[in-house]
């Protein structure tokens, strides 16, 4: 029986090549997209699961409530880890991870590199693999250094890395380290990424004695703990108040200081907590992609259904004959479903090939290193997908066709019975609804991206190069000054200024303090020189800029932004001081500008020339990037390569032993929107694919419609219809359908996009013309598809079609 079905299916497919190719191609594209998106989503949801102890590893986070304000941090105080181990038997061990960047020196070359300081049980707790070295004797002493293969190649080429000596700047000292192990590439799906590791025992060089032993309110590093088998984070959290009491002593206030534990596997997709050492991902992106994958697949499945409806007249005959020959309905159902699954299987094979081919470009778009292997999970996923597609796609022939009454079918009395027009139209309508939603998504996401990249930020980002000194302030400032003086002679340079953070290090310094009324407040701060305001083209709206000739400006003057003026409710800001212990007085106010990405609201900001006293007097200081003098150089318009080499020459003349490290400001700023760029390109490709598949179905259907109406067209032409009227006759139905589909798509996409836009503090409004444009695009593409067939029918010789009847 199976053989009979199988051969009839194969022969049917071979005979109706157009039908087969349309179906298989559509389904393959659908399945291939699903495979790629599945890989991505799987990667998103598998973060940190590669550690064998991942079920027992937690990251501590801090929740402080103070005077009605709340502070949540995933960076934790230095003494927390040891305290957790010594106070709670449930905590088997802990490992702290401190991430910073520092200057690395090897044989005269100097680079600024990110670096992690970790407790020595790092490789026992986590499952990172070593390429060279012994995992049990990695951190033998204070000066052991673990380095990644990639970095080993950068510094030592093909030489043996173990045993090499490298100097690292820790605090104010250059310290000699010896490489003891080389690690394999860190898995992408890891919330801990590193290129260099040094033992935590170097903490005394980086943190003050106070921070190390009593700094319970200063947060610096991530703390991971391993719990005993069978213990949950909650078990430990419940006992945390005991620790808080011990720490605070007489000052203990219930609920003020809370340490919580987050499972390591939840770090990556948990947006409710601030990011730790690495940015976290919005699970929404995983869901959006998953939905897109399902939509594309659904569009392909609908093709299958509508096409099989189209050829149901011929299949109905077969059903009639088989029934007369004794077939039972369930046998026909299994035959049709079997056929659908067979087509799905063939498509699967094609799709797997496509997925392999397109994996590389997809990785480029999605910024991943996904691998597609035929693992058990993947094979199971694919086979269940095929069964599912077969069941969905074969549902029409299996359920409807198999129910036909043989007498009616064989008597050709089926015209009435196949009143499936509505069902089929609804399906095509659904396809176009999905396609139009994706087209609208493409346009709006593109607009928002364009807005993000081109919005007036309140400063001029064009033609600016940022050069890092890669030295702490004490050494870096004189170097920066020297370089700046040198640049005065460079004809390509319009101007330059020095700041501790440039616009490529968004966030700058966050200072927290308690004001005169005991209210806790924060503001952002940056240290700049007198040229910064002019060079970056900030707009001074009140007061004046810093002056180099005025010693008071250097010591305790500040320029603030409008947001800060508003925050403190000042009507006449000049001469005001922050209501706390700071000595700085306002000498000028600049118009608000975006020193962080447009995801964030503009925060109150103070610009000073010497930050030391301000930092000293703040309660809390936090910054993401290493503070060091950076030179912002504004260039003339011209040949960039030549300009850069002239800058490098100037740099070498003041710092002959140090590498020239530079960034283009506009590029670094665009990097802030990587996630959005990625989404935009994925949605763009997805909408292209979906409309392509939908049109393939439409093409097949219009071919069938034309064939069915050949006689009608012939008669009409004999009666004098011209080509135009025939084309209109054949296209009319589809046009209405797409207009209807567009009307359904509009509110859905408006709702979804508004939801997405909520993520941005600064965003565009969705405009009405976008909908019209998307509808028009879909309509145009559909019309071209349909008229292709319609014109063919319209120009055919009517005598021919009438004779064959």
């Amino acid at each position, binding site marked *: *029986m199976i053989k*009979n079905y199988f*051969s*009839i299916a194969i*022969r*049917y497919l071979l*005979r109706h090549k157009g039908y087969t190719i349309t179906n298989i191609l559509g389904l393959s594209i659908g399945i291939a997209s699903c495979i790629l998106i599945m890989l991505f989503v799987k990667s998103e949801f598998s973060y940190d699961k590669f550690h064998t102890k991942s079920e027992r590893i937690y990251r501590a986070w801090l929740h402080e409530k103070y005077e009605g304000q709340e502070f949540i941090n995933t960076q934790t105080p230095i003494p927390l880890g040891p305290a957790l181990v010594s106070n709670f038997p449930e905590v088997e061990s802990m490992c702290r991870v401190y991430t910073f960047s520092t200057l690395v020196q090897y044989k005269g070359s100097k680079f600024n590199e990110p670096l992690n300081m970790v407790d020595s049980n790092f490789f026992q707790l986590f499952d990172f693999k070593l390429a060279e070295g012994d995992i049990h004797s990695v951190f033998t002493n204070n000066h052991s250094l673990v380095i990644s293969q990639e970095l080993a190649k950068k510094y030592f080429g093909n030489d043996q890395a173990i045993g090499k000596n490298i100097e690292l700047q820790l605090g104010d000292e250059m310290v000699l380290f010896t490489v003891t192990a080389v690690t394999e590439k860190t898995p992408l799906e890891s919330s801990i990424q590193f290129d260099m590791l040094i033992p935590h025992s170097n903490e005394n060089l980086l943190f003050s004695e106070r921070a190390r032993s009593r700094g319970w309110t200063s947060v610096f590093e991530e703390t991971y703990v391993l719990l005993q088998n069978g213990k949950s984070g909650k078990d430990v959290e419940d006992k945390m108040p005991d620790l808080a009491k011990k720490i605070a002593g007489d000052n203990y206030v219930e609920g003020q200081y809370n340490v919580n534990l987050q499972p390591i596997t939840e770090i990556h997709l948990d947006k409710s907590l601030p990011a730790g050492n690495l940015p976290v991902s919005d699970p929404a992106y995983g869901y959006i992609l998953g939905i897109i994958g399902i939509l594309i697949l659904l569009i392909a499945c609908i093709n299958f259904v509508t096409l099989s409806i189209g050829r149901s007249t011929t299949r109905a*005959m*077969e059903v*009639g*004959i*088989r*029934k*007369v*020959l*004794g*077939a*039972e309905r369930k*046998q026909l159902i299994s035959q049709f479903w079997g056929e659908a699954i067979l087509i799905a299987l063939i498509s699967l094979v094609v799709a797997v090939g496509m997925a392999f081919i397109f994996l590389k470009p997809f990785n480029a778009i999605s910024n991943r290193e996904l691998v597609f292997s035929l693992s058990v999970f993947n094979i199971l996923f694919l086979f269940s997908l095929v069964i599912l597609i077969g069941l969905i796609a074969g549902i029409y022939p299996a359920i409807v066709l198999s129910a036909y009454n*043989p*007498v009616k079918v*064989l*008597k050709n009395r089926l015209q009435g019975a196949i009143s499936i027009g509505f069902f089929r139209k609804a399906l095509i309508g659904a396809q176009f609804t999905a396609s139009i939603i994706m087209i609208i998504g493409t346009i709006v996401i593109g607009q928002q991206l364009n807005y993000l990249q081109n919005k007036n930020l309140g400063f001029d980002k064009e033609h600016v190069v940022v050069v890092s000194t890669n030295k702490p302030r004490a050494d870096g400032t004189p170097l920066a000054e020297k370089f700046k003086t040198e640049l005065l002679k460079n004809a390509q340079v319009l101007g330059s200024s020095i700041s501790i953070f440039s616009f490529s290090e968004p966030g700058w310094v966050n200072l927290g303090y308690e004001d005169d009324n005991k209210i806790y407040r924060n503001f952002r701060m940056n240290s700049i020189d007198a040229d910064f305001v002019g060079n970056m083209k900030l707009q001074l709206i009140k007061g004046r800029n810093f002056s180099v000739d005025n010693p008071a400006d250097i010591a305790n003057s500040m320029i603030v932004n409008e947001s800060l003026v508003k925050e403190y409710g000042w009507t006449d800001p000049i001469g005001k001081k922050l209501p706390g212990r700071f000595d700085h007085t306002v000498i000028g106010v600049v118009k608000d500008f975006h020193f962080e990405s447009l995801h964030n609201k503009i925060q109150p900001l103070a610009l000073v020339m010497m930050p030391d006293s301000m930092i000293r007097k703040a309660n809390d200081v936090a910054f993401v990037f290493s503070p060091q003098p950076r030179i912002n150089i504004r260039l003339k318009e011209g040949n960039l390569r030549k300009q850069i080499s002239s800058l490098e020459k100037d740099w070498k003349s003041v710092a002959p032993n140090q590498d020239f490290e530079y960034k283009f400001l506009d590029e670094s700023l665009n990097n802030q929107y990587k996630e959005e760029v990625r989404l935009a390109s994925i949605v763009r490709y997805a909408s292209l694919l979906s409309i392509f598949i939908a049109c393939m179905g439409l093409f097949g259907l219009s071919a069938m419609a034309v064939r069915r109406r050949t006689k009608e067209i012939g008669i009409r032409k004999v009666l004098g219809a011209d080509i135009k009227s025939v084309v209109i006759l054949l296209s009319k139905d589809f046009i209405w359908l797409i207009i209807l589909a567009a009307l359904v798509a509009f509110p859905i996409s408006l709702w979804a996009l508004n939801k997405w836009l909520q993520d941005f503090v600064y965003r565009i409004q969705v405009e009405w013309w976008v909908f019209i444009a998307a509808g028009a695009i879909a309509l145009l593409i559909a019309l071209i598809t349909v008229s292709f067939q319609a014109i063919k029918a319209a120009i055919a010789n009517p005598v021919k079609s009438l004779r064959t009847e």
Partner: protein
Amino acid sequence: MLELKGIFKWYHSGNNRTFLLKNIDLSVKVGEFISVMGPSGSGKSTLLNVIGMLDTFDQGEYHFLNESVHKLKEKQRSILYKQYIGFVFQAYHLLDELTVYENIETPLIYQDIKSSERQAMVADMLDRFRIVGKKDLFPAQLSGGQQQLVGVARALIANPKLLLADEPTGNLNSKQGEEIMELFKELNNDGVTIIQVTHSEKNAAYGSRIINLLDGSIEH
């Protein structure tokens, strides 16, 4: 073999009842060869479909080999006709995608007959109809007469007691038609009961009895 008593079949158009079959009484004995004649629309095919259990009726009794068909459920009816009745159509109704061999084999598949047994039965049939050489051809590669030959072979493969033929020669030229009718006669001589619908007096003459239908009633 079968007996129809007071069979009515109708449909409603507006408030009127239009009769397809009106008070049909018919009894058919084993070994008969009956020709049903009558003008177009007189209900010949409907009668044949009712006898073949492909179609239902609205009133009356139908007894087939001691079974009361009017009391059976659809499923039981299909088991009954699957086992005892073979069909031949004017338009042959072969499955285009299957070869001659596979077309003949199909009814056996639906009766869950084992593959080796099927092979033997189909081989016998091909032999008997002298179409062994055509077994791997598709219907489109055969002439009309050959196709109908396959159609008859397929109808007979499961050894039916009753062969129902709806204008079996309607699409054939006279020589091909004659051959089919000769074949029917032979089958009848071998003991197969046959009921055929025909327009042709000549073909009707092959039968042992002629029934004339007019407007759904048997003319006496």
